[in-house]
């Protein structure tokens, strides 16, 4: 069986397992939808009171917000195995069994628990994106749709990479690191507003350290058809989502180093 087909099998098995508890899955999905929807409500309240902020209007922020939530939702669906590696695999010794099977650990962990409830966040992002883009008159042509998809691809790679790195670190810490939430959930929080609102140090961190701005801010400016108030040339947004894939490459190098370092807990 080819790798892709096997992954598909694992994912279907995981989805079937969740379908056994439809009530629970539906409630979790609704929880994801509402839990995130209240954030855009707070953004609306701020715009309602203060008006446009440094040349940005609510609809434009909604486009950033929607796309960032959608890319994170998809990455979050597929990365659960790496997220809980420390607690569910390393501490229990189950990772030994993963290594014994004649398939890569990456493939098995990706298919480990494919969480359907994340569709709640995705749907919420999509609704906000559509309302926002309609409000500011984004023209959905082949070019803008392509740009949005390209940004999303880079973003999914980036968020997935962050969690893979978290998994790699857990070979040393043997637990799941909550601190990574700063870059995942915190990253979503940071990237849902335009970069130009932040101080210099945070802009640089979001561009060069964890390149969230490269998958969100710069390419989405092209979707909005808006020049960067910071003066970055437009072509940069076309190539910048590549940074997500470069980050993913680095993450897998770290991952391989971690796997080689692995010693079983023996329990």
């Amino acid at each position, binding site marked *: 069986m080819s790798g892709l087909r096997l992954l598909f099998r694992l994912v279907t098995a995981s989805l079937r397992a969740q379908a056994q508890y439809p009530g*629970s899955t539906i409630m979790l999905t609704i929880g994801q939808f509402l*839990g995130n929807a209240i*954030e855009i*409500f*707070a953004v609306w*309240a*701020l715009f309602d009171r*203060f008006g*446009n902020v440094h040349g940005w209007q609510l609809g434009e922020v909604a486009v950033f917000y929607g796309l960032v939530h959608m890319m994170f939702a998809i990455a979050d669906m597929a990365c659960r195995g790496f997220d809980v590696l420390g607690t569910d695999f390393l501490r229990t010794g189950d990772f030994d069994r993963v290594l014994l099977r004649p398939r890569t650990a990456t493939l098995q962990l990706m298919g480990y628990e494919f969480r359907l409830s994340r569709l709640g966040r995705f749907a919420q992002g999509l609704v906000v994106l559509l309302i926002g883009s309609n409000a500011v008159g984004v023209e959905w042509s082949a070019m803008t749709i392509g740009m949005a998809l390209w940004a999303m691809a880079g973003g999914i790679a980036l968020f997935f990479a962050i969690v893979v790195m978290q998994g790699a670190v857990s070979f040393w810490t043997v637990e799941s690191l909550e*601190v990574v939430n700063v870059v995942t959930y915190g990253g979503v929080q940071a990237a849902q507003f335009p970069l130009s609102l932040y101080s210099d140090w945070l802009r640089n961190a979001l561009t060069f350290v964890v390149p969230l701005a490269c998958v969100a801010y710069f390419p989405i400016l092209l979707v909005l058809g808006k020049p960067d108030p910071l003066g970055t040339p437009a072509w940069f947004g076309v190539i910048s989502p590549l940074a997500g894939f470069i980050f993913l490459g680095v993450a897998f190098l770290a991952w391989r180093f971690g796997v080689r370092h692995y010693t079983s807990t023996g329990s």
Partner: protein
Amino acid sequence: MSTIDVMRPYTALFASRFQQMFQYRGAAVAGFITQCWWGGLKVMIFAAFYGASAAAASTAPLSLSQAVTYTWVGQAVLVLLPWFADPYVATAVRTGAVSYDRLRPIDFYSLWFIRAAGWIAARVVPRAILMFGFAAILLPLIGLRDWSWQLPPNLLAGVLFVISIALALLLSSAMVMVLNIITAASLNSRGINALAVAPTMLSGSLLPLSLFPDSWQSALILQPYAGLLDIPLRIYFGVFEGAAALGGLAVQLFWIASLVGLGRWWLGRVLRSLEMQGG
């Protein structure tokens, strides 16, 4: 029996749950780092909005420095919010351990209530101390006074704030008790997690309630969740002072009494039909 003797099992319960939960210091440190980042981001967003329009900023019901302080206090007591049922209850109901609790010669509602209060307090206290050290002491020391947690304008406001935040702990415990009772009745704690958005939004944790549209204000301040964070902070800033501060405390007391009343009545009904699990 003196009052001390009557209270003793309850204070012991609170102390033991507090000490037990206090062991999870690693989780508190991880949570603290996440909350510093969260708080920092929110502060930057507030600064951008307040800086964008001088006219709107001058008429806003909170000044920027109050919004910044609000953010840090909100992060410090974030885990005060009643998001989940006490995990102890779900386990006790599923394994049948609830029958031991029923046999204890003390009031059953109070038993669970005090356990919940100890559980919440033990998670709040270490995080609040760390956050105060970071936002109120460290930030001014490194020259970021504008971004720091400011002290209340006078001593009285500070004292009333301490009373109000203690009431917030009782209010949160009463809300957790309602979630506990739902868990006991349905033998399942997952479904009610979808309700977790209400405390986040309506307590002011997401955005200070006074920044929502002006026409909503009286409804926002009277609803039960305001007593978890927004009322204590209005007292802290001296926005509520004198009679208004007492009014804020009265709103908190009203909701504590109502929710405890509801909880006692409902728990009585649930326990009459509760089936013992396990063996």
